[in-house]
């Protein structure tokens, strides 16, 4: 499988503080990667670097074989930020309008929304089961529904890669299970590559085929199954911690 995201020796500094140090990995088409690490390990920084939101101090990122600076096909990458961390919930936008924003990566100046776009938005809302909420404001929805709207915004451009920053933080266990099953379907049936930041390394093991574990530097990148049998990881995490990560609980 060809790598669609390649990080080569990347480092990111915030002033004099080193947030990421010399990290390298390749993500292949169809991967479902759980991105884990303790608080302050640099997970969100890494995702932001991949999305071009933060400049690299050193190293290089290639997206679909092209260096990130020259990459223009942003419709190939859908992003779902940490729930409402950057969104003004009082903003008077309807569900339909929010999802439409995801189409902007496919548009050239002057960006216009066509009848075909509206049809596509309606079809996606039906697929996600939020048709009845189309004219509602985001603030009027439950946490699970809001997450579906943001997923819709990420999916509408038909991306090949989806990047999530802790998408299940505000979800109850039932909504979380339903959400992850939906991601599994997108990964397995539509072949969408998924990178997902999580604290719950055990839970993500049910769905992800690879684990990317960082603590400012790369600790592990590879298949979940190999992580569980890796003696170096056993000595790094300790047997108990490694078992918890590999437990894949419900």
């Amino acid at each position, binding site marked *: 499988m060809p790598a669609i995201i390649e990080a080569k020796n990347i480092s990111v500094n915030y002033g004099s503080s080193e947030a990421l140090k010399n990290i390298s990995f390749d993500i292949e088409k169809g991967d479902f990667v759980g991105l884990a690490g303790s608080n302050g390990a640099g997970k969100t920084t890494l995702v932001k670097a991949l999305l071009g939101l933060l400049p690299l101090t050193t190293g290089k990122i290639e997206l679909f074989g092209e260096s990130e600076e020259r990459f223009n096909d942003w419709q190939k990458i859908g992003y779902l930020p940490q729930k409402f961390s950057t969104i003004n919930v009082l903003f008077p936008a309807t569900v339909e309008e929010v999802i439409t924003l995801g189409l902007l990566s496919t548009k050239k100046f002057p960006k216009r929304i066509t009848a075909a776009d509206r049809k596509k938005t309606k079809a996606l809302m039906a697929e996600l089961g939020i048709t009845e909420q189309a*004219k509602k404001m985001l603030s009027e929805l439950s946490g699970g529904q809001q997450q579906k709207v943001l997923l819709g915004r990420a999916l509408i451009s038909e991306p090949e890669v989806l990047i999530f920053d802790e998408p299940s933080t505000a979800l109850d266990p039932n909504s979380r299970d339903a959400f992850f099953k939906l991601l599994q379907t997108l990964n397995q049936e539509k072949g969408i590559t998924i990178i997902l930041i999580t604290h719950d390394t055990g839970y993500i093991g049910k769905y992800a085929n690879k684990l990317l574990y960082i603590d400012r530097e790369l600790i592990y990148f590879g298949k979940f199954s190999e992580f569980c049998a890796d003696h170096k990881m056993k000595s790094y995490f300790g047997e108990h911690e490694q078992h918890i990560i590999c437990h894949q609980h419900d």
Partner: protein
Amino acid sequence: MEIINFLQYSFIQRAFVAGVFVAVICSALGLFLVLRKMSLIGDGLSHVSFGAIALGLFFGIYPFYIAIPLVILASILILKISEKAQVYGDAAIGVVSAIGISSGIILAGLSHGFNVDLFSYLFGNILAISNIEVILSALLSIIVMAAVYFFYWDLFSATFDEEYAKTTGIKTAFINNLLTVLTAVTVVLSIRMVGVMLVSALLILPAVTALQLSRGFKTAMTIGAVASLLSVILGISFSFFLDLPTGATIVMINVVFFGLAFVYKKIA
């Protein structure tokens, strides 16, 4: 009969034409500014306009010719101060605002001659607007409206979630600069209507009225524009018939609309 006569006055016709244009651009830009928590940029830039108008009067140049470029520069300066000097946006507005108002006062003190003219800009008077000012207002308003139309979705996305907007390829730094420059032009145009003291009200009030009633962003834009237009039309009319200051009357009608929208939202 009196109403028909009223509409035949050329100064009333000029006021309506300029007022309608300025009302529409104020409501459109105001919505983006309020949602970005940048409402007070209008206040800051109007203070800069005061200094720029004083500079124009001091050198005997038509004030708007000086005010438009200077206020645009000041708007960019506000952005740069907050970005480069790591100063909060409201503090950056405060710094630039202080430069504007204090330079205006110093120039007024030095001139001894144009204080009456300068202070007329503090409160505005759309009924005294000249033909050239109407043409200038219409042309610049059309440019502002065209920019909002062509960059509508970029402005919407960058205001709703700037970080996400960047991931869709939107040049958010350009969009932020564009919004600030358009606001600068709008502030200068609005000064003739309501004066330095009340410009920010023209930007903020239609937006907050719209936010009480809207069920979507497009609806908010429409409600804001209607509220702003009605305020200007009714404000000019009432001020003529009741012999009231026009700018303050326009603003007070805006306040009434906001009050009605607030009450409606509570009881609906």
